[in-house]
């Protein structure tokens, strides 16, 4: 009998971090305002009290410095978990992430391991100012040497953060910030599946919706509405954006013949684009309609009063479903 506890995503990440820290003294946390305050989203709240200032530290407000020193600590045998305060603040660290962190194992021909996790609260829907609502995951998915994942629910959050920390490769851990306080059951005993596996969340045979992170909730809403009209959507939580579990997606498309990929990120040159291309390659004869992408527009993330129009909602997904069912 497994031990289930109800908690929100933020608390699940917190619990997962504590578990990883308890299991391995080499796991260190640092970032901006993460110690006493617990981070601007309180994800690391209370960890300072439990583990003390040698395990969790505030950093100077210098993102490149945070990632660059994390690389050095990884060389020293530590497993740093660093927080980028917001998605839009990751770019000062872009150089260290893409030219150093991602390439260090390759450069050293395997002599060095890079067990660094970069936690990034991402996505919109919180009524924030500029740079606080972005979805920059494609930049990192495009970078060889990085792994990129995003949990959508508390159970995955709890386990995926631990799996990311256990990985010897660098992992970009994108946290759906508008879902931080969404509750769900967490199985404290058994991990649900490997870090890079996609999950079929809801079965159906009319069309497949592939999505991740904050869009999973939206896709499930869309599936509920569609079901009332007799349209049975299969919903896949991709969970891992690099590598992507194409097998699960392609198998689903072989069954449904139709695919919509949904994300908050802009569609152009996106994770969604990659999925569309792959499905076209691997399930061409099974497709009854073109693959459609439902995502943010290709504009800078808009001011808060316009974000509802920017972010795909259930209706936008259903509009795309209508179009592919019309073929």
């Amino acid at each position, binding site marked *: 009998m497994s031990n289930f506890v109800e908690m929100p995503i933020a608390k699940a990440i917190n619990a997962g971090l504590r578990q990883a820290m308890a299991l391995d003294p080499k796991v260190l946390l640092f970032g901006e305002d993460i110690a006493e305050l617990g981070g601007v989203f309180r994800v690391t709240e209370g960890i300072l009290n439990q583990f003390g200032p040698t395990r969790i530290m505030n950093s100077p407000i210098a993102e490149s*410095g945070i990632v660059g020193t994390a690389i050095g600590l990884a060389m020293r045998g530590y497993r740093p978990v660093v927080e980028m305060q917001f998605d839009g603040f990751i770019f000062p660290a872009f150089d260290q992430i893409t030219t150093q962190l991602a390439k260090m194992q390759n450069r050293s021909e395997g002599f060095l391991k890079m067990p660094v996790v970069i936690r990034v609260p991402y996505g919109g829907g919180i009524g924030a100012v500029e740079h606080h609502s972005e979805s920059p995951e494609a930049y990192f998915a495009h970078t060889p040497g990085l792994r990129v994942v995003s949990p959508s629910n508390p159970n995955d959050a709890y386990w995926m953060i631990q799996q990311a920390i256990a990985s010897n490769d660098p992992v970009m851990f994108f946290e759906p910030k508008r879902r931080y306080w969404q509750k769900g059951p967490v199985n404290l005993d058994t991990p649900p599946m490997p870090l890079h596996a996609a999950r079929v969340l809801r079965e159906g045979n009319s069309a497949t919706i592939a999505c991740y992170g904050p869009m999973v909730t939206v896709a499930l809403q869309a599936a509920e509405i569609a079901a009332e009209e007799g349209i049975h959507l299969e919903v896949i939580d991709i969970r891992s954006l690099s590598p992507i579990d194409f097998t699960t997606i392609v198998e689903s498309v072989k069954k449904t013949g139709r695919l919509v990929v949904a994300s908050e990120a802009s569609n152009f040159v996106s994770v969604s684009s990659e999925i569309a291309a792959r499905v076209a390659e691997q399930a061409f004869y099974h497709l009854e309609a073109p693959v459609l992408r439902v995502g943010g527009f290709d504009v800078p993330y808009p001011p808060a009063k316009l974000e509802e129009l920017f972010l795909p909602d259930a209706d936008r997904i259903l509009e795309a479903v209508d179009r592919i069912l019309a073929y």
Partner: protein
Amino acid sequence: MVQFLSMDGKLHVPDEWAQYGEYLNRLTEADYLKFYRDMARIRRFDNEATALQRQGQLGLWIPAIGQEAAQIGSGYGVGPNDHIFPSYREHGVALTHGIDLMSILKMLRGVNHGGWNPDETRFHLYAIVLGSQVLHATGYAMGVNFDGNVATGNPDVDQAVITYFGDGATAEGDVSEGLLFAAINKTPQVFFCQNNQWAISSSTASQTTVPLFRRGEGFGVNGVRIDGNDVLASYAVTAKHMDDARNGLGPYFIEALTYRIGAHTTSDDPTKYRSNEEVDYWKARDPLKRLEIFLREQGVGQVFFDDVAASGDALAEEIRLATFALANPPFENMFNHVYSEPHPLIEEQMAWLENYEGSFEDEGHLAHQTTAIQVVETPDVIQVNNEGGAA
């Protein structure tokens, strides 16, 4: 500026630098000879590498001629447990810590991107993105602190970290952030800036308005300027601040004022941006010449210098033949270490390439790889000689 050995080979320890001068007492005659031998050998190596590039055997060469004292001296100031984070021109430092110089030539031939073991050698991989390594060094030094390998008083336990960078790199934000993180964490660390006065074609004056040894002050990292062409100053000041770092006194900034006699790389043409007079001025301050004068005055005979020259020629011959013998890397090398753990995309693409290449049968590209090196046209102004390097 700390200088012990003047350009005419006279040794003098001014009172104000007595704290560094003490370190010269640690040196035996054999150490002085070793300094000279290594400086001469690395220059000979450098000239040979330039020649190899000109002959199409290396894709690029990065000469360090003129900087031998800064590198050999500081390299020997680094202890046997310390870690070194170089930029990409620290061939001399590599020599002092037993790095197989072929590892560097392999990289510049295009066989790999580094590939030596930094844990084993304590000499970390060359960093081509300017200043990036400064943060890695700082993070590593933070780890030394966390591990308690500082100020125990046990020389087998205490460690320090040194990071090398140039005048050009000081403009990079990563160097400033490295200084800040080092100061905040009181890391056991030396920031060793070789100011060779030219960041490709940009002069130091275009990089800073305040002398570079003062760059750390605002962050809480004090600094000192040394004559980077004086191997004794370079050794003593580095050894002193590495000791201090190991003893828990925190980070320090050393600016070694030197000069890049050669080109930035073999793709560069320094005649476009600096005068012959300037280069001649610095050639007169050649780090090898002043040590040679000093050693001769101490009674070191021609036999020694002949032996050093012969040993340099032997090294040159050795690396030349070893370069010719370098095999092209197997295609799997492109894929094998991108990740530590299995990755489906990498596996798929490696299998595809193997299959694709195999499909050519007799014409298989993998079986008939052409050399990775292309002879490219470069300005014909850099002539190799065995005396002053590429000029």
